[in-house]
């Protein structure tokens, strides 16, 4: 599959905008998410992530621009999009009087499955997200994390080719987050397209192949992302010989002013990965016992913070 083919099978967004009255929630969003990959959608609160998700989910009509989901335009052929799209909203709603099982069965029926296949699929999904113990309890007794799992299962009912997950990890415990990550990677491994929005950037770092940055309703261009990634970034170094480490760093040309100490680690600003490798080699060669040498923040967070800093006048 070529790049353009896999993009067409996934999500293509070109110049999309949407205003609510005076408020321009999304002003210019352009990105592609290729089939078989996980794409993170990153942006501060109020940047238009959910509005963009709603337009992708065929619920909201863009004022301008063009969207295709698995090759179909949601404003022209919503039914074709819906049969290929799973959406997990940021709002956790469930039919409170229905059990977990019948919620999934009804969702399947709404996707035009017959009773038997809807029931079979519901059982599969209950196993998949780990809600076996609660399968026959009404959904109103579920905790926030359990509702997240149900919501994820509901998005997967019709085995969609494109999956939109809006803040899927909020409310999940660490074990459930790991399960979510495994699940998302597996779905992508099956050749499907996954778009995830999240505030927890460290987590997206582990899941996403690429990221789309959204600020004030505008997606960041490739150039500004590259610029933000290229900026100076903090690295943390840990050594059992703290005094020796500081001495060695001073010797390598880093003044005392450039260093900060945090929880027994030394933080040091470095311009690039090359600079980091050179410094590490120097320290090791100088006999300093190093136990940690890593960027202080993840790639996504670095980019996110860099873009935000660029945004400020």
């Amino acid at each position, binding site marked *: 599959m070529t790049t353009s083919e896999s993009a067409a099978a996934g999500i293509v967004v070109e110049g999309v905008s949407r205003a609510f009255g005076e408020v321009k929630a999304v002003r210019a969003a352009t990105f592609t998410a290729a089939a078989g990959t996980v794409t993170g959608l990153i942006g501060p609160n109020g940047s238009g992530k959910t509005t963009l998700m709603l337009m992708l989910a065929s*619920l909201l*009509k863009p004022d301008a621009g063009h969207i295709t989901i698995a090759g179909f335009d949601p404003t022209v052929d919503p039914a074709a999009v819906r049969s290929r799209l799973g959406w997990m909203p940021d709002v956790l*709603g469930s*039919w409170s*009087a229905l059990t977990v099982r*019948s919620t999934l069965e009804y969702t399947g029926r*709404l996707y*035009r499955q017959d009773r038997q296949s809807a029931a079979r699929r519901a059982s599969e999904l209950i196993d998949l997200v780990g809600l076996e113990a609660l399968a026959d309890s009404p959904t109103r007794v579920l905790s926030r994390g359990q509702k997240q799992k149900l919501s994820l299962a509901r998005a997967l009912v019709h085995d969609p080719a494109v999956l939109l997950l809006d803040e899927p990890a909020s409310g999940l415990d660490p074990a459930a987050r790991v399960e979510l990550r495994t699940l998302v990677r597996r779905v992508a491994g099956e050749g499907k397209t996954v778009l995830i929005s999240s505030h927890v950037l460290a987590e997206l770092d582990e899941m996403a192949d690429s990221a789309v940055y959204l600020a004030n309703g505008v997606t960041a261009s490739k150039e500004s992302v590259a610029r933000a990634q290229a900026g100076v970034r903090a690295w943390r170094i840990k050594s059992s010989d703290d005094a020796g480490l500081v001495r060695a760093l001073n010797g390598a040309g880093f003044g005392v002013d450039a260093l900060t100490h945090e929880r027994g680690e030394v933080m040091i600003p470095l311009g690039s990965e090359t600079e980091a490798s050179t410094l590490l080699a120097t320290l090791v060669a100088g006999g300093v016992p190093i136990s940690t040498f890593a960027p202080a923040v993840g790639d996504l967070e670095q980019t996110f913070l860099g873009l935000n800093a660029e945004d400020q006048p």
Partner: protein
Amino acid sequence: MSAFLVGIGVIVSLELRQRVRTVAWYVLIGVFVALVAIVTVLLKIALGGFGADNSGGAIFSAIIYFVLLLGTLVAPALSGNAINGDRDAGTLATTQVTLVTTWQLILGKFLAAWVTALAFLAAAIPFLIYAALEGGISGTAILVSVLVLAIELGVVAAIGVGLSGILSRPLFSVAVTYLVVAALSVGTLIAFALGGLSVQSDVRATTSYATSYSSTGQPEQCGAPQTTNYPVPRFDYFWGVLVANPYVLLADAVPTAYEAEGYPTDLFGNIKLGVRQAQLPPDFTTNYDECAGDSFQAAFETPREIIDRTTPGWFVGLIIHLVLASGALVWAWSRTRTPAAQLARGSRVA
């Protein structure tokens, strides 16, 4: 069965399970049955006290009215938050991203609300059978009254579901649904009464009374004719308002059974008579000459004759109601359609 109907069926079943089938609901039906039973027994005793030989007819009409009253009181609560309540609960958008269409969603919700209101009618059926047997009510009358009642409950359900799609706040749409029911049930009566009383016409009455009588009591000589003017209310201008009243509509639609003298035998017939009399304009000039042997009651008509020669307004009312109901549903559809172009101020899709 077509895919469209299957989709509606899934929504109806979902609605009934999610909103309706609760303990509180069964309690409500139980209370309703108890109330109908009490009303039936009390009416039987009360009418028996008057020595009425046809209390069954009155009981039948009373139960039908009672079901209409309770149905129109319960239906708004069940239907008035069908769409915006789901939006608040976060279950509307997740339904809309499935393959169910907006029309299937709205019609399914409407049918579920209607079926729920009809449950009250179903619960009252044993009492209706008893009253019908007791009163010897004709099959047509039973059929028409039950049918019109069922349609009226559907109209209220449709208006409730419609308003829940038009207005964004559930409490507000339920309240507005109640106001619509009140406007139709009570507002039309007030408009009719106030309208009729505020427009008045002068009647010119010319009377000539006898000044002397013969030994047999026959008038021999009459005095000069005297003319007096007095105003009368013009209800005949406003009778049209009443056709939109569900209670009047129901009474007007049901075929009336008459006694030998031409009087209606049941409550519906008497209400129908009252409404039909309101259509008749008053006599603007009356003449009475005692010597000419005039009688005050010269132009007496039986109720049956009045009903037969006046306009049956019920089907105009029914058309108005059906237009209101379908208009509300169409408007709700256009407000709930996705992908949404416009959203109401302060509302969100999901």
